[in-house]
Structure formats: structure tokens, C-alpha cells
């Protein structure tokens, strides 16, 4: 559970590290000068995650876009890296308008530089062309 207590610039927050399945319980404290002290991590990636969560929380977006001429109506896609959390909803709206045509290969760029983040949206599977399918 993310619990925040904020007094001026001071902040204390508990969070679960989502970088790997271990799910360490982290605690971040920011003192009056804005300095962060982080505890509870088992590795460096957890420490970096906690710092990012306070300064600039980001998430990888995984969703689907419409695809024509394939055995399925949807193609799974993902951002190549995590994008700012506050852009997730907007990115979903942008991707709802996207439609591609099979064949597609894993890793093909479906939408470059989504919302000017410098991050691409790529296909996360192969999709063969099937004749006779709209």
C-alpha cells in the first residue's frame, strides 16, 4: 500500500518494488533539503525504482491494436521502454485509432515516438497474413 505523509518538502512513502517478482517492500524518505533515503531493496534496480517513483513514475504500456488480414482481429503491442505514468491514458487513446495490416513481425515499429516521448510502440508477436480475412 502506498502511504504518503507529506509535510512541506518532507515525504515518507512505502511502496512495493515492481521491477522483479520478489516484490520487496521499499520505504522512501525525503528530508527538508529534498534528499532521498531509500530502504528495503535487495538490489540496485529497486533503489533506482524507488527514486523514479518519487521523481518521475513510469510504466511500460502493453495493449493491442487492430490488425487486418490476420488470423486474429488484434495484435499485441508494447512500448519499448516505460513511458511517464500520466501519459498512459492518452497513449491508450492514440493506439485505439491505430490499425495495421498483416504480416507483422515481432519488434516491428507500430507507432514511432508516441506522444513525443522518444519511445516507440512495437509488435510483441508475429502475425501472418491470412487470405480471405478482412
Amino acid at each position, binding site marked *: 500500500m502506498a502511504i504518503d505523509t507529506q509535510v512541506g518538502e518532507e515525504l515518507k512513502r512505502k511502496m512495493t518494488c515492481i521491477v522483479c*517478482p520478489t516484490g520487496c517492500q521499499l520505504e522512501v524518505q525525503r528530508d527538508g533539503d529534498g534528499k532521498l533515503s531509500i530502504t528495503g531493496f535487495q538490489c540496485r534496480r529497486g533503489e533506482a525504482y524507488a527514486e523514479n517513483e518519487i521523481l518521475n513514475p513510469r510504466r511500460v504500456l502493453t495493449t493491442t491494436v487492430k490488425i487486418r488480414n490476420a488470423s486474429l482481429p488484434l495484435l499485441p503491442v508494447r512500448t519499448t521502454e516505460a513511458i511517464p505514468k500520466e501519459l498512459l491514458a492518452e497513449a491508450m487513446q492514440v493506439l485505439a485509432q491505430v490499425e495495421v495490416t498483416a504480416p507483422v513481425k515481432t519488434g516491428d515499429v507500430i507507432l514511432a515516438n508516441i506522444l513525443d516521448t522518444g519511445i516507440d510502440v512495437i509488435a510483441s508477436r508475429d502475425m501472418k497474413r491470412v487470405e480471405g480475412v478482412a
Partner: protein
Amino acid sequence: MLNTHYTDVAIIGGGPAGLAAALAARRAGAEHVTVLERNHELGGILQQCIHNGFGLHRFKEELTGPEYAYRFIPQVEADPKIHVYLNTMVLSLSPEKEMTAVHPVHGLINLKAKSVILAMGCRERTRGALSIPGTRPAGVYTAGTAQRFVNMDGFMPGKRVVILGSGDIGLIMARRFTMEGAKVEAVVEIMPYPAGLARNIAQCLEDFDIPLYLNSTVTKIHGKDRVEGVTISQVDDNWCPIPGTERYIPCDTLLLSVGLIPENELSQEAEVPLDPRTGGPIVDESRETLVSGIFACGNVLHVHDLVDYVSEEAEIAGEAAARYALKQTADGVVNGKNGMGGQFTIKPGDGIRYVLPQRVTQGAEVDLYMRVTQPMDAITLSLSGVTLARKRQVRPSEMLKIKLKAQHWDSLLEDGKAQGRELCLAAEPRL
């Protein structure tokens, strides 16, 4: 009369377990490997798991389900000695390792194998197994079925959703529904702790302010043709609803994420004994069942939360099944192995829900996989009194993997702790 086809290693199921087993069997020298998959493509459940979170242990990268599957599928397809039959459902299996399957073009086929690997995965528990009072309107789905609808078929089952059970699939779907514009009203869990991984509670519920009600369950489903709402109630220590705690939540969809059951109808037909704790076959460290030459791996053996361990386990089974097939002589007699001479049984003791493999050969250095019965802090895991490992924090949702080493065997055998060839694994609080 049906024509009978012959193969060295037959693999039932082309999910991550079947794929890794096929490749490992080939590496170990099997000359003819057959994969039978009832779906129209390989990859199993991974094809509908479009979220990321796969492969961190194995590939040191966070992949989506389909991407993880594609680390294996092209290799399997490129190997001319692996024969893949899609749209092919195995209907029966005998202890003599004869199968019948139905194929869209060839019709019924008979297949006889020197060794068989069970890799059928698991299925979701359904509402019938739970018996919630109320009407039977449309709008009740298992979480995995909803996942397939939303991610592969392009169909949203509803707009206002309540999820019963806090398993990982339900948590992943809570996020997915929210991102697709539906409102997830609540996740309701009967236990005092969540069933899914802590990271999924954080990134699927907390990120979207979806409430999680622990010690609670759905006590009534409302609506005639379509779900209109559910009543949830708190439960006491015996899981009985507490009168006066009822709360009505309007919704049009109820998702069930109340657990998975290994799919073992075929195993039972082949007289493979199952472990009631895992719901899967009893196996030794090579993942051989108690029926000689029949092996098992992946979710059919025990429900895994991480696919990385599925692949690892499948490689053990694939290699052993290949060795078994190679040792077999023309008249079907196997040389060596299965004398059962040096085998020990491992039983779960205090704090342990199950341990796998259930049989180990004396002196074998093996990874033991286990789950605890409840969340615990600061524990020692010991085997018949011999300490194997200490853990800071353990949860039933996370499978533990611990190595049984030569030095542990030394202590077990020296001190005569291994009485009657039975070992007991326990999780004890550290004082």
C-alpha cells in the same frame, strides 16, 4: 484399423512447457520428437498474456507472454526432427504410452511413443466449484476467459466489473479492463492476504486506486438476464459470512480469479498417481511420474506463477524423456533406472503446502520447489532437521526454489535423520 505412428518422445501440449521440453529432448539426442497441440498455434496460455513480466530470471529482460513464447517457437519450427501437429487434441493415453488424437485432416490418429511428456497446463476453477447463491445471469466469466476475449478476440465483456479472488490473472485483468475504459469496482478476496504477487497488487490495483477487500467474499449475484450487481460480505475465521457486513455493489460483470487446477484427465487415464496437494502427478527429480516413461512438467504438474521455472522444469523432463527413449531396446524393455532402490519420499511438514519433486534419489543434488501455507517472516526451511535455507519473507503466492546439496545429504544420512526413507520439509520461525 487405424494406422499407428511411432515416435521417440511424444509431448502433449505446445505451451512453454511443451516447447522447452521438445528442444531439450532434441539436445539430449532424441531423433524423433512429436508435439501435439489442440490450439491453432503454439505458445499455450502465453499468447493471451500480453502484459510484460515474463522471462526476468531466464533472459534478464522483461518480456510479454507472446515475446517469451517467440524465444522458443522459431527454434521448434526450424528443427526437422520435431514434428508439430496443431489443431490436434489428444483424446486418450495408456500406461503403455499409446495415444489417440484427433486431427482436422488425418482424422483419428494412433501414436505410440517410447516416452511421453505431459505438458497440458491447467484450467481455471469455475463458479460451479464455488456455488455462490443467487441467479445465473450472463456476465459471469473466469478471468482467463475474459483475458482471451479482450486481448485476442477484441471483445469487452462489460463496463462495470467486480473481481472475485485476487489471483494474478484477476489482478492483471483489473488493470487491463481499467485501461480499456471499464470501471473495476472491487477485488474481493476471502483470505486475509492477496493470492497474487505483491508487484501485481502494486501495479494493477494501487496504480488505479482499485479497492481490494480482504477477508471478504461475494455472497449473492443479482440480476435476471444480465448481472446487475453483487453483494459482498466479510467472513469470519471459518470463511462464514458475517451477518450485517453485507454491501451491495452495482456491476454488469463478475470475473472469477479463484485458482487454477492442473489438467490431468489424460494422466489419470494412463494410471499416473496424483498428489492431492499439487493436483498434479507425483514425480522424481527427473520429472518422471510413477508410470515408467511418462514425464510431466509445467502447470500440469503444479501451478507455476513464473514461466521461467516452467521452462527450467520442462528442460529437465525433456532431457530425461530423451534418455529414457534412447535406452529403450527394441522389445520395449528399459535398461537400468526405476529400480526405485535409492529413492526417498519428501513430505510437506509444518508451514509447507507442497514440495516437488515428491521423490528424490539418494544423494541427488536437486532443486526443490515449494510453497508455504501462509505469509511468514524470518523462517528456516529444514529437511528432517537439516537446515536448507533461511528466508526473510515468504508468501504462498511465490514459489520457493531451494537446492538440496551433497552436504545436506551427508548430514541426513550420517545422523540417521532419514528414517524409513521418508524426509519431511518444514518451515519454522526463527527465534
